């Protein structure tokens, strides 16, 4: 069985105080920042703020326009596609109509031929 921490043996704080490792660690305290740390950090915060503001006027504006441009581009593309589809549909309908007319003319032409061949005059019939 894996050894675990002695949860309920004694209060945690007392456990810390009685542990020699704990006391040894206390001999190596946390290092302190230098005297100018706060001033430098404040300056950095100010710079970051300025950076964010300039970003809002420069890059931010660009991205805002890009976002708007995306909508405009998308909308335009949609309209073009719809118009293209409409035109294509109209063209295909026109072609169908033309085909039908052509077929009708062809049928009429064949009918004329049939009529011409079957309507020979009776006096030319040699069987009589």
């Amino acid at each position, binding site marked *: 069985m894996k050894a*675990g*921490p002695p*949860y309920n043996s004694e209060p*945690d704080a007392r456990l*810390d105080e009685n*542990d*020699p*490792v*704990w*006391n*040894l*660690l*206390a*001999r*190596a*305290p*946390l*290092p*302190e*920042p230098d005297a100018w*740390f*706060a001033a*430098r*950090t*404040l300056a*950095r*915060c100010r710079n*970051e*703020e300025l950076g*964010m503001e300039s970003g809002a006027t420069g890059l931010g504006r660009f991205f805002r326009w890009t976002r708007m441009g995306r909508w405009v581009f998308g909308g335009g593309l949609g309209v073009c596609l719809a118009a293209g589809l409409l035109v294509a549909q109209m063209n295909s309908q026109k072609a169908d109509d033309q085909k039908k007319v052509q077929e009708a003319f062809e049928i009429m032409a064949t009918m004329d031929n049939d009529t011409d061949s079957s309507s020979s005059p009776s006096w030319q019939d040699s069987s009589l």
Partner: protein
Amino acid sequence: MKKRIRDERLTRAPMGDSDAHDKVLMVEIAGGDERALRELIEKHQGAVYGTIAKMLGDPVEAQDLAQQVFVRVYRAAGSYRATAQFKTWMFTIVRNLVFNEHRRRSRATLVSLHPPENETGHPGGSSGIDLPDLAIKTPGEVMLQREMLRKVDEAILALPEQQRLAIVLRRYDEFSYEQIAEILKTSVPATKSLLFRARETLRVALQDYLDSEGGKGCDRK
């Protein structure tokens, strides 16, 4: 209106209540009060910088990361909601930045610009952290003491990152188990387990010093 809310909070928060005061400072920072930001930095810089320096063993990097922590606190002041203790929330930022730095370091092959430990001539050791002035008379004792501090720092640096942060938060920043669990995003039993394993590892690594001390100096905190 904002000023009135701030004033109300200030009157409600007793001066002794550190967390409430931090939250008041955050409200003031959100309102653009630079004095409040300075106060917050000065109040927490020791804990934040010290923790990061202990975690990384690199004072230059620690300074940069500690500044980044305060920049993030400053940026988040407007959207900050006082749901948890301020210090716990701030140390969650510390944790994220330190662990990110560890990941970055593990990805990159770093070539140290610092001279090797034996060539420095600086008795502060490989970590480069300024050690406290030791009130011990003889140079031999000073050397031994510094050597011990260096070994302690090295033993802490050799711990896995979760255990290391748990031990630093518990030992040096005196966080409760619940707070450490919140910072490490884990449960309280898991935190206790982390601390137990860290202590056992340190006990083995620092066995020589523990034996030689034999309880001597254990009264010092």
